[in-house]
């Protein structure tokens, strides 16, 4: 195992305090507290419906919280003006679950889009930077293909290339290895480690894949039913005695205790 959260750079880049969120009347996240240090790989782990994707959307500032604060790189995102938010967004890269590449553009155009929109670089410079990022993710020579011509693993790589094209301080990855075969998934994990080590990024990974989480994480935040059960190193999470964490690790479905009266009322439709 690699050393956990770097002791020599303890600076906090993301600080979530008492975050509560709702989707319609339904509460999704309950009192989330989480801080992420510079240059660490933080894995937010949980099953489907745990609220991990919602937490990611809040960290990205594309969802409104009910209460609580989120500070990213020292700025509280709910108080930022549009121009300040734009500046912050240039320091954040996101690799979405399905890649979210624009299907009407080539791979190269996809990757250079942030450059075209946010910089005044010439076409030649942008082409070079695009090829550079494609080299980093191992997709050299694919810039003229359309996203529909790529395999699942290649789409993820291209999404990573687009996410890092502005050299962000923060990289967010949504389910990077979901839907990939084990070999390709493991290669994506290696890529994430290389990006942190080579480019010095702080990386936040949302995943339900245990193997991947244990391989790449410096620290893991275990999310279940909208609550953070534990934040700790891989070892700490592995050795946890908390029953809900053990169930998650052992892929054990947790039965909810049933109240007989409540059950009858549900069946008769009076609940």
């Amino acid at each position, binding site marked *: 195992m690699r050393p956990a959260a770097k002791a020599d750079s303890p600076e906090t880049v993301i600080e979530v305090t008492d975050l509560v969120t709702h989707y319609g009347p339904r509460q999704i996240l309950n009192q989330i507290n989480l801080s992420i240090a510079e240059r660490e790989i933080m894995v937010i782990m949980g099953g489907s419906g745990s609220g991990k994707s919602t937490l990611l959307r809040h960290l990205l500032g594309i969802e409104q919280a009910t209460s609580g604060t989120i500070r990213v790189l020292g700025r509280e995102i709910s108080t930022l003006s549009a121009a300040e938010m734009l500046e912050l*967004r*240039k320091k954040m890269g996101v690799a*979405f679950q399905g890649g*979210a590449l624009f299907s009407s553009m080539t791979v190269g155009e996809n990757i250079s889009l*942030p450059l075209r929109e946010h910089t005044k670089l010439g076409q030649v410079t942008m082409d070079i930077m695009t090829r550079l990022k494609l080299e980093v993710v191992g997709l050299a020579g694919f810039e003229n293909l359309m996203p529909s011509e790529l395999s699942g693993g290649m789409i993820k790589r291209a999404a990573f290339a687009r996410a890092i094209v502005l050299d962000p301080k923060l990289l967010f990855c949504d389910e990077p290895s979901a839907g990939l075969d084990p070999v390709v998934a493991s290669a994506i994990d290696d890529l994430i480690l290389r990006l942190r080590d080579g480019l010095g990024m702080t990386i936040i990974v949302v995943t339900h894949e245990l193997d991947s989480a244990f391989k790449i994480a410096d620290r893991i935040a275990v999310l279940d039913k909208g609550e953070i059960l534990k934040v700790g190193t891989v070892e700490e999470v592995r050795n946890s005695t908390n029953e809900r964490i053990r169930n998650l690790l052992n892929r054990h479905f947790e039965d909810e205790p049933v109240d007989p009266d409540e059950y009858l009322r549900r069946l008769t439709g009076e609940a």
Partner: protein
Amino acid sequence: MGSHALGLVSRLVERLGRTTVRGVEEFGFAAALLGETAYWIGVGRWRRQPVRIGAVFEQMMEIGIRAIPVVSILSATVGAMLAIQGIDTLRTFGAESQVVIGIAIGVTREFAPMITGIVVAGRSGSALAARLGTMKINQEIDALTVMGIKPVRYLAAPALLAMVLMLPALTFWADAVTLLGAGLYVVADLGINLRAFFDQTLDVLVVGDLLHGLAKSLLFAIIVTIVGVVNGASVTGGAEGVGRMTTRAVVHSISAIVITDMVLAFLLTR
């Protein structure tokens, strides 16, 4: 029995209320969207979020130029149809030579803008809704947002600009082709020459008639774009959702076009 009927009524009222609230909500969303789109077209350049001219031209090509064949065919057909019915009706009074007046005014004020509006709603309003809907379910809209690119500025603004420029242009073209279609039938049936038909048409028409039609087409352009964007942006639930909202976009924009046309005809003609 009484309580049962009461329950039914209260459920009906509740449904009516919900539908109304949702309708008002959607209308508000559409209005806000139109405002935001206009804002980015107006001031985007100074906020370092310009509307790309290239994207506007691409949309103009798709919305306008590629619609010319189908608009031409439909216009010519409707023109001939108007002439057939007009001559047949006026023949009962022995006044078939007066057909030109009805055709000239009817075509420029009503038929050309309406045909063009409906064709563009079917071709481009649906395409816009489908494209945005697919982008939404593929998280491409989220991807734009987190890249610091305003989706309204990047996706809706070029479409609106292109539509507002091309729909009146197409309508003007449809004016000419519909009149030609009508003229050819009149020439064949009444034995006058085409030159005489167009001379008479231009005598009857005033600039106001043309502007009446073009002003309506401008409004149709805004309706088709906003309805397309609202429906595309509201897609949920995968490919089936995209299909549902695309259909809804076409049905709503054609309905809105026809109703707006009637209201404007009433307001402007009387």
